[in-house]
């Protein structure tokens, strides 16, 4: 029976949500605008060119991947920026002092990250809906990949925030790990277009399964087996949450 501090966890969740809503132009509108700009550029650069092997045009192929990439990046940004700012400003001590367990803290942070990710995704899809047909092929796949991907990235953001001592450390993670993994995950191309070696390497990138599974939810076509993709994504999300729980409970890089 849970006898913890549900009000405390809810307060932390609402605080996190209020924090990103106070700067909504930066956290919701700007990412959506960036993704739309990508779409416009690719639309005019590539015209009606199709994607080899999938039987769909490139623009339709691009939309779910870009939506998912924005969602993943924002889930990561939400937790990582909150933790690193708190650490740099030394306000993380109020969280450490509060009667909140690691489960409550991690749960609240990740739930807020998932909500921001969903909002970014929703804004993007709503903006694009008048121009393209976005009727989903498998709504449950979209939700599964959207939620699991956001949990995974929210968790990785939490770990990144805990690891970082300064903003520069966070920038290192962002630019040399998250950005390459998301860009090289099949957002802008089908892995069937890659040489065999790169196709094999891609199989080890969990972000590839996230993008591909999310796309499968919309288009009903993809590069990977949906069952394998779902397994990888769910396992990665669970492992990340467990890692977050363990690291927060030992005060990793938060307490000396």
């Amino acid at each position, binding site marked *: 029976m849970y006898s913890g501090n549900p009000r405390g966890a809810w307060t932390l969740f609402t605080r996190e949500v209020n924090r990103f809503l106070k700067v909504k132009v930066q956290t919701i509108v700007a990412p959506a605008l960036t993704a739309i700009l990508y779409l416009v550029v690719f639309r005019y650069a590539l015209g009606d060119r199709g994607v080899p092997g999938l039987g769909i045009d490139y623009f339709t192929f691009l939309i779910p991947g870009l939506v998912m990439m924005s969602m993943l990046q924002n889930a990561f940004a939400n937790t990582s920026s909150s933790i690193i700012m708190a650490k740099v400003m030394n306000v993380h001590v109020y969280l450490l002092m509060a009667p909140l*367990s690691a489960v409550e803290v991690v749960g609240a942070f990740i739930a807020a990250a998932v909500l921001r990710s969903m909002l970014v995704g929703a804004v993007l899809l709503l903006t694009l809906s008048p121009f393209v047909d976005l009727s989903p092929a498998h709504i449950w796949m979209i939700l599964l990949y959207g939620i699991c991907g956001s949990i995974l990235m929210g968790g990785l953001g939490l770990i990144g925030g805990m690891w970082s001592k300064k903003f520069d450390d966070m920038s290192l993670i962002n630019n040399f790990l998250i950005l390459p993994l998301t860009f090289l995950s099949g957002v802008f191309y089908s892995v069937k277009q890659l040489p065999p070696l790169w196709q094999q390497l891609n199989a080890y990138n969990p972000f590839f399964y996230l993008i591909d599974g999310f796309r499968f939810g919309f288009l009903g076509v993809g590069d990977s087996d949906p069952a394998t993709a779902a397994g990888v994504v769910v396992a990665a999300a669970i492992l990340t949450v467990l890692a977050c729980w363990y690291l927060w409970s030992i005060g990793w890089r938060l307490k*000396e």
Partner: protein
Amino acid sequence: MNKIALQVDGLRKVYANGNIALHGISLAVPEGSFFALLGPNGAGKTTMINILADILHPGEGTMTLFGRDVFQEKSWCKRQMGIVPQEVAFDPFFSVREILNTTSGYYGCRPDRVWIDELLDRLGLTHQADKNTRQLSGGMRRRLLVAQALVHRPPLVVLDEPTAGVDVELRRRLWDFMRELNRNGATILLTTHYLAEAEELCDHVAIIDQGKLVASEPMQSLMHRVAVSRLVLRYAKPILISATDEAALTDFKPVILDEGLELHLELRRDEPGMSGFDVAYEAARNRFGPPLDAAVHQEDLEDVFVRLTGNTGAEGETHVQR
């Protein structure tokens, strides 16, 4: 006051760089007391408070709060404490009232508007309630720290140098409020470098120096045990102290100052039928005749602190200066 609010036993903390901050400190803070935790900079006061607050990992030793293990029953113990940290830091996204509401929630309480309004009023923050913390002055931010620590009505309030760099008005306001909370049953643990404040407010005191406990007892007991009164005699002409005079006055640890015009004698405890003052005065009068003026200087907590922590000043005065 027989019950113990906070019991610390054998608390030891070694930082990653090898610096030993606490060498197995043991002390007890009685329930309902106004307890001063004193020590020079770097003595280990904040380290001890940070371990209690769960900001630092404990090393060895135990801490119990109202009978419960601080390290095992973290959630329960944290709800019993309100800690005002030394460093002023705030979330830049929120207003004063939002911060207090959030802190209430962290501690599992529904935000109590009446109590929050009272805290704002008592700490002079009513007009700043809807301002963002970035708009507050340093003093106002420190007030907010205090309000934040009290928002869940904790039975133990820990104040880590709460008046460092703040004006007289806030100090008075804060101490009045703390006295009232203490009268209503809260235990107050205070660290401060303003020793006059500690002496005036606190009924118990612990002094730590270089991570070791030097004293821990009721304030009155410490002052009675360690503080010394001195008889200060002023003469019209400089006096000379011979070896015989020195031998006769040795119990009074004589000190001559102001080029021989002033003689300081340490007063012994009163004896039956004769006060310490009379004994010292008579001994000096027999040697040097009647003085122009006589006064008694009573050591305060600052003198006691300096003496116990071995800081500057105290040693030189114990020798005769010719």
